[in-house]
């Protein structure tokens, strides 16, 4: 930490001592949560997103929001087994508000049914980004936005490729649920970011435990649930416009959404949305990060029908992006890599440009979803979802002989998903039984690339059945679930790039979960979940083959030994995770916090291990082979919100993870270092025409990863004979940054325009991030100033 940063921190801490400001936001909103028939509901969660407040109803179902400023708010109430409900309220509000929730299986005429089945277990630990959080992050890629949640990190490949990491796990161990449908892309690649447009989301939930019972083996490390705003909320015509401008890479990001009703009945609703992004080279405090520009164009359309006891939704989306990879990060041999590791500055630095040259990635992801639900008498709610996705990934390299226009990797993945579930509820008992089927075809276009593919062609059919049941007794909710999966996998690969072989496998595997939620008092809640889940290794882990240019390493799958291809299923061991996660949640009037602890023991954990060095015409390369070991990942996350007075609030979040290969007594690579972030916000309810004015300062502090693998510099690789894990460079030191944000609402016509100005890395600090794969080559980005405008409009 520099002296300057230290003073900022002192200044920042001093603000606590400031006298309380005038009490303009001192309104209270009281009410009661009931189920139909007047039975009160204790422990229901109520939130007012605009005010950043969330409370839990008391034992008599009552609730009180304090410290509200005058204005219009949206109150959201939800409770396990009941439909979520949103209520529009004006503050000041006279009298008590009564919020009536409808049970999932019953219908009230005046209740808005969103047509969404339940997605997460009540005993799971969930992190949430709400609409307001997302508005402040507009223009950022999904993986970067998710870093706001404690315990969620990202493996970066430069400034615009972010791969989410949940409690140390990533890639094929994490499932992304994009508007209810599991995202099927090329998740295996560490430099492959999720193919999702975050502009579609009105909220994003991250489940930090295994949700394999509901979603299958892809969810072994957690689930990211991206939810667009529900259809059926608009009466006539409405929409939203967003604009974001970013100084560092001179990026512009725009999005527009329009929604409305078809005909007079309001049973049919529609929505159309599009977003576009264009940015040039990012820069560090010292130099341009040449060839890190990006271009993105996405659009989606939805059509929904909502009838009595039934509903239908058709959703189409198209995600298209082209991302430049730092030119200097392309290395053809160990000497090139050695030069990059030891030099302070990348060898290729040019003037700013919007042009994208090789190396670059071009990704197109098309999605179609048809989902429907029916309330069946005496049975419950039946949900049926079909999804088709086509993912195309092309990676361009610097090639000889005019081949640079041809992709070096070209993969097409077609997938079909069918999910059927039946949610039932009877008294204090509720649950869900279901079936999932996924059929996938993966194909390499090697006739265009003329390069041996990193992963082979394959066909995969996975089917699973599950049951999840819940019992509620006053303060206690118990939950249990089990799942059985079968996977058929047929791989088409070559021995010596000559003889086609087609090994086929049949895997059977189980998952189970047990959890509880206990309400000590209306403000204090404990959730605890134990999950046992297993997955067969992914095709990439079984049959990868080839040279990874970004890391200058040759990678080989579990079922490859040099030129020999193994086909015996008996050699494949399933990876099995046993995770216990506990969260204590306190939601007081002034103070709220949540604190989680977890322990995850993974047997047969698949990882890349240095195995050999190989001499080629470009010199020596390290050979990494996929291997399996026993690993432990344990740690904790904490979040704290303190409303110091009506003006000042303090926010803090912390995450720490310890991970180790216990079988081989070695470190694991790409485990996020410990980090803590402190933020102070000052709010002014109104000032002239402006409302909801706020200023906030935050200081994220990231520690050095002291348990990084040992270092073997590229020049020492030819002499390295150890099979211990290594990294090409030491883990960079810790760093603290200074970020600030100012926001307000401004009336424009009869609606409000939300304006946010923010600055990141204000002190323009040079640093490197352990979780960025391009840290061997270049620094992180320097200061970045952003302006974001958001306007919602509705026709009355």
């Amino acid at each position, binding site marked *: 930490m520099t002296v300057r940063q230290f003073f900022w921190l002192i200044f920042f801490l001093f603000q606590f001592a400031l006298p309380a400001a005038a009490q303009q936001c001192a309104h209270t909103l009281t009410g009661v949560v009931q189920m139909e028939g007047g039975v009160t509901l204790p422990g229901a969660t109520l939130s007012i997103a605009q005010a950043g407040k969330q409370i839990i109803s008391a034992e008599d179902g009552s609730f009180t929001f304090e410290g509200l400023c005058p204005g219009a708010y949206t109150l959201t109430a939800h409770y396990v087994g009941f439909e979520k409900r949103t209520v529009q309220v004006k503050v000041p509000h006279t009298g008590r508000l009564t919020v009536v929730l409808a049970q999932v299986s019953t219908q009230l005429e005046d209740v808005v049914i969103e047509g969404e089945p339940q997605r997460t277990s009540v005993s799971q630990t969930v992190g949430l980004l709400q609409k307001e959080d997302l508005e402040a992050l507009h223009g950022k890629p999904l993986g970067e936005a998710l870093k706001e949640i404690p315990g969620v990190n990202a493996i970066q490949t430069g400034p615009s490729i972010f791969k989410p990491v949940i409690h140390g796990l990533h890639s094929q161990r994490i499932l992304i649920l994009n508007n209810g449908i599991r995202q099927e892309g090329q998740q295996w690649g560490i430099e492959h970011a999720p193919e999702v447009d975050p502009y579609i989301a009105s909220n994003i939930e991250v489940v930090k435990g295994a949700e394999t019972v509901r979603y299958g083996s892809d969810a072994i490390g957690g689930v990211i649930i991206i939810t667009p705003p529900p259809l059926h909320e608009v009466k006539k015509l409405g929409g939203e416009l967003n604009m974001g401008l970013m100084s560092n890479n001179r990026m512009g990001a725009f999005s527009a959404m329009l929604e409305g009703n078809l005909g007079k009945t309001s049973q049919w609703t529609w929505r159309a949305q599009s977003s576009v992004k264009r940015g040039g080279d990012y820069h560090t405090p010292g130099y341009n990060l040449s060839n890190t520009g990006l271009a993105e164009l996405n659009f989606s359309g939805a059509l929904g029908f909502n009838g009595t006891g039934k509903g239908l939704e058709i959703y189409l989306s198209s995600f298209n992006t082209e991302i430049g990879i730092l030119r200097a990060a392309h290395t053809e041999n160990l000497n090139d890599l050695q030069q990059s590791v030891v030099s302070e500055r990348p060898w290729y630095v040019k003037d700013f440009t919007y042009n994208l040259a090789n190396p670059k990635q071009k990704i197109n992801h098309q999605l179609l979803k048809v989902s429907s639900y029916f309330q069946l008498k005496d049975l419950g709610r039946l949900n049926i979802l079909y999804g088709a996705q086509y993912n195309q990934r092309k990676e361009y390299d610097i090639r000889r002989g005019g081949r640079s226009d041809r992709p070096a990797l070209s993969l*097409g993945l077609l997938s079909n998903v069918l999910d059927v579930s039946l949610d039932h509820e009877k008294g204090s008992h509720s649950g869900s039984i279901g079936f999932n089927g996924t059929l996938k075809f993966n*194909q390499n276009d090697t006739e265009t690339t003329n390069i041996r593919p990193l992963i082979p062609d394959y066909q995969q059919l996975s089917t699973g059945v599950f049951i999840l049941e819940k019992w509620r007794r006053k303060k206690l909710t118990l939950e249990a679930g089990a799942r059985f999966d079968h996977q058929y996998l047929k791989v088409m690969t070559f021995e010596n*790039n000559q003889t086609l072989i087609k090994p086929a496998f049949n895997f059977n595997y189980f998952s189970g979960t047990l959890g509880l939620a206990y309400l000590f008092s209306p403000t204090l809640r404990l959730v605890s979940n134990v999950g046992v889940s297993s997955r067969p290794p992914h095709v990439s882990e079984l049959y990868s083959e080839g040279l990874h240019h970004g890391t200058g390493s040759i990678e080989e799958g579990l079922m490859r030994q040099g030129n020999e291809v193994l086909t015996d299923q008996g050699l494949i061991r399933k990876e099995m995770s046993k995770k216990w996660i506990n969260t204590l949640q306190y939601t007081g009037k002034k103070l709220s916090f949540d604190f989680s602890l977890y322990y995850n023991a993974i047997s047969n954990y698949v990882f890349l291990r240095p195995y050999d060095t190989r*001499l080629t015409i470009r010199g020596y390369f390290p050979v990494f082979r996929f291997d399996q070991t026993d690993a432990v990942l344990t740690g904790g996350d904490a979040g704290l919100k303190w409303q110091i007075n009506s003006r000042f609030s303090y926010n803090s979040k912390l995450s720490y993870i310890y991970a180790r290969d216990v079988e081989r007594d070695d470190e694991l690579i790409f485990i996020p270092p410990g980090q803590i972030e402190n933020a102070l916000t000052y709010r002014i309810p109104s000032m002239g025409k402006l409302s909801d004015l706020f200023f906030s300062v935050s200081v994220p502090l990231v520690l050095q990863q002291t348990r990084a693998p040992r270092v073997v510099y590229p020049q020492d690789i030819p002499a390295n004979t150890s099979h211990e894990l290594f990294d090409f460079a030491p883990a960079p030191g810790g760093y603290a940054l200074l970020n600030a944000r100012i926001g307000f609402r401004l009336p424009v016509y009869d609606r409000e325009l939300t304006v946010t100005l923010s600055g990141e890395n204000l002190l323009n600090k040079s640093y490197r991030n352990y979780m960025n794969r391009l840290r061997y080559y270049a620094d992180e980005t320097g200061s970045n100033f952003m302006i974001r405008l958001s306007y919602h409009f509705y026709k009355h």
Partner: protein
Amino acid sequence: MKNQLKPSDSLRSFILFFSSTFLVATLLLVMACGDDPKPVNEEEVITTMTLTLTPVGGGNSVTLKFYDEDGDGSIQPVKTVSGPLAAYTTYEGLITLLNETATPAGDITAEVKNEASDHLFCFTTSNVNLTVNAKDKDSNNLPLGIETSWVTGAVSTGTVKVVLRHQPGEKTGNCPGGGDTDIEVDFNVTVQ
């Protein structure tokens, strides 16, 4: 009620269009997947580098050769040096590059010559009395290094490192300069 459930004609065609599109796409891909993938025709691989050194005044020529039959694959490459170089002698060097995974073998030397202004051979000697200089030039009058002149000195033994740099838009004629390394091979040589 029944009336409301019925989508309008335009709506119905919209649904039909997209569902049929995806159905057709699915069927096409399923059928395409019935075709087995073919072995990759790896055009770009360099399996063989041969450096032929011919003494200017006549005498025994020397060949330095690197051969890796499967490119980056696990088969070990073979390095051969046909014999020692004579002291105080000038040799004319000529490099040929081949891709012998293809039949007939791909002529990589021609590819490098075609892109002469993007390529540069660099030669580094250590412990051996030998100087290597490029004789040929690219269109910008910068050295290329396919054709070279090797001048030996007194009796000695050491290594000569042959590097091919790929420098699209970056070539200045200096070694190593910007760009990436396409070839890096060390040969043990003796001057006697």
